């Protein structure tokens, strides 16, 4: 198979992978962008969520060749330069993560919502986030963090470290 060119976080990356290889494996194992996580591999959990042209996509379910050639892929590593996207700050403020494994996917899913709908209702948030599983049960804090940003409340970061 010929080299693929993927546009990830604003940079072009060349990879050579077998046809049908999922975007998730390309990101994680070929390019070392390990923020998107593998958990179910079949589009059932959202841990692997990234953006393709601004839309949330479960990267375990799309083949890399399907998103090559100029489609804009954004991963958690590229969501902000230094971890200061309003949602990332709200996540710290609300002390959302526990084990943290699902959280890149949660934040990417939430960011895609706020891009389209800056002030979603509680029900809209739940509907949009319902496919992202969190075994640690952090949902209420995820909701709170999204509402903090949606409500445009001023954020004081309690970033200890």
């Amino acid at each position: 198979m010929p080299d693929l060119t993927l546009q990830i976080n604003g940079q072009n990356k060349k990879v050579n992978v077998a046809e049908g290889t999922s975007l998730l494996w390309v990101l994680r194992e070929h390019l070392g962008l390990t923020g998107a996580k593998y958990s179910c591999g079949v589009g059932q959990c959202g841990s692997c969520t990234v953006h393709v042209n601004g839309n949330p996509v479960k990267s375990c379910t799309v083949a890399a060749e399907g998103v090559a050639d100029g489609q804009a892929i954004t991963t958690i590593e590229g969501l902000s330069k230094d971890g200061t996207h309003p949602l990332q700050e709200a996540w710290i403020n609300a002390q959302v993560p526990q084990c943290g494994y699902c959280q890149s996917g949660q934040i990417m899913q939430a960011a895609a919502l706020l891009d389209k709908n800056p002030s979603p209702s509680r029900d809209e948030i739940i509907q949009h986030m319902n496919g992202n599983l969190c075994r640690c049960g952090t949902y209420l804090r995820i909701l709170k963090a999204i509402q903090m940003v949606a409500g445009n409340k001023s954020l004081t970061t309690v970033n200890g470290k």
Partner: protein
Amino acid sequence: MKNISSQHTPTLSRRKFIKTTGGFAFLIGATGILPQIISCKSAKEIDPGILKQLTAWVHLSSNGQVTIYNPAAEMGQGSMTSLPVIFSEEMDADWDKVKVEFSPQEKEVYGSPGWDGKTKIMMTVGSRTTRSYFTLMRQAGAQARYVLLHSVSQHWQVPISELTTEPGVVVHAASDRKVNYGDIVSFLQTPESIPEIPEEQLKNPQNFRLIGKEMPRWDIPSKTDGSAQFAMDIRLPDMLYATIERGNLHGAKPTLKNEAAIRAMEGVIGVVTLDYGIGVIANTLERALAVKKQLDIEWGGAQTSGFNSQEAFSNYEKVLNGTEKGRELTNTGDFKKARQAAAKTYTASFRNDYVYHAQMEPLNAIVQLAADGKSAEVWVGSQSGPNDKEAVAEALGLEPSQVKVHLQYLGGGFGRRSAPDAAGEAAMLAKTVAPRPVKLIWTREDDLQYGMYRPMSLQRLTACTDGAGNVTGFSHLVAGDGANLLTSGIGIDYYDIPNQYAEVRVVPHGVRIKHWRAVGHGPNKFAIESFIDEIATGEGGDPVEFRRKLMKNSPRALATLDKAAEMAKWGTPLPEGRARGVAFIERSGTLTTGICEISLDPNTGKIKVHHFWSASDAGIIVQPDNVRAQIEGGIVMGIGSVLSEQITIVDGKVQQSNFHDYHIARMEDTPETIETALIDSQETPQGVGESGTPLVACAIANAFAALTGKRLRHLPFTGERVLEVLG
């Protein structure tokens, strides 16, 4: 912070320290002075200062950075913050300059006393992290402070008793001098021996400035930008990928029918036959996964052959009806006599299906065996690094001391990850391709179908009352698989019931079973607290009032009940179609009352939890917000497990395979509010990580009974089962 007196007793020699004390191992050079740098850190990290190891627990850099070792796994419960906070409190470190790393996985040095109180273990299980390390970390922190005070006392030639500390600074008030911790590095002198710091010389809890304060978690920023590293994220030069096809029948032996064809496939580096599976090693992960699907395996039989989980309950019935006694767990007073004298007798049975851990990070491990075969390294997210070390050593024919464990963050543990199976397997595969490292990944399907489940059980409860509303006897019989996994939480000594009896009868099936968050408490508290409600109703009492009476000799338990009842406005009217249910549990020393408010969709049988209130007494709280987060998360996990999680087995084969048919709680299942109260206490800290989860089954079942008058007796309460109960 107060002075340390210069006469500490008893004093132990350095050698004894390494051997004997839990809190401390002091690694010093032969001269008694620390070598300049005892650390494997890269020069970059050391820059700009010189780094010195103060004690086995802490490194100090001349720029003031304090690096503290966390001896526990971080699986979401917050150990990466709580233990270093406790240490920093006594060391009087400036928290802004603290950095945290996992300690080496050496249980002799970094372990805490195990259940026997003597042997040291490093196991992040049973909510024991804060409980078992609280005093140990305080003493270790105080000892690190002592080394600093000693150095300054030598350097300034002043008595140690005249020195005090402020965060990050040693102070000599008499001469009005101060020195930052970082500046001590240049003249650090370690004493020949370091005294044990007796508890009365530790800080007075009233003066805590870190413990009990709202401290943001140390690990959280890295969990918002994708930089937190899990074993799943490890990539090493020359690394190969492996998967294992395991039989759906636990323990079945494989015969690979197409080995030659598999070996000839593109990218395949090796094929390894294990007792219970076939491993494939390939040059990429996608190849390893693709080839796994091509394996043509004939499976042998196993103990699980023919086993049907839903039929097991009738067998449990027979076992409980039989005369063969099992293991007695409680026998106080005389239950039989109480029963003969009873005015009224109650009896009820409760059942629970298998549940699966479903930690979001499937099992995985990376192992590299050195070219000379004499050492190995393993990268793993484990609840017990030393267990993994032993498993890898055994697989490779090495001594544990020849294996180095690089502990990583865990993408959830919940009890699954104290078993070192993934690391042991990765070692068996890596052995065949040494010195290339092998990353073994369990797919979600592997993780689920070859899981280790919380066992099924049948519980039969009998109680008797005296006609005046007093419970005089209580008997609890359990039948199921996995002795110790069935027994936790069966004790109810906080209830004033004079005659109590409990017994477990074991029925093995060969299905892999394991501790699952709160272990036996889930099923046992479901049965006990449902039953207490039934008795309350039978005696014409309100469930809260009835428990109040039972708890009259347990004031701490009672305080949680009162608090939760107040929060939930127990007894006030609710809108039509809503009802509340209450439950009390003790888990890992923490006492908690939970109350929920539910509604029911009569067409689908779906139960919705709208609100959850809990009040806990967990002793001294190290990180209040994190404790609340643990209880919230535990309740949400509990809701999933109680309403929809179910592993069923037909002819030995697990019927579920991934999240489409194993339903954990989603955002829509989360209550609108979860309120958690923590009761003020100066008692020793207790375990909280598991205390939310086992509240849920009983609170929901009791609310359901209040709403419908019917009892739910079989976990999970799926829509189908609910409709069946409603008739």
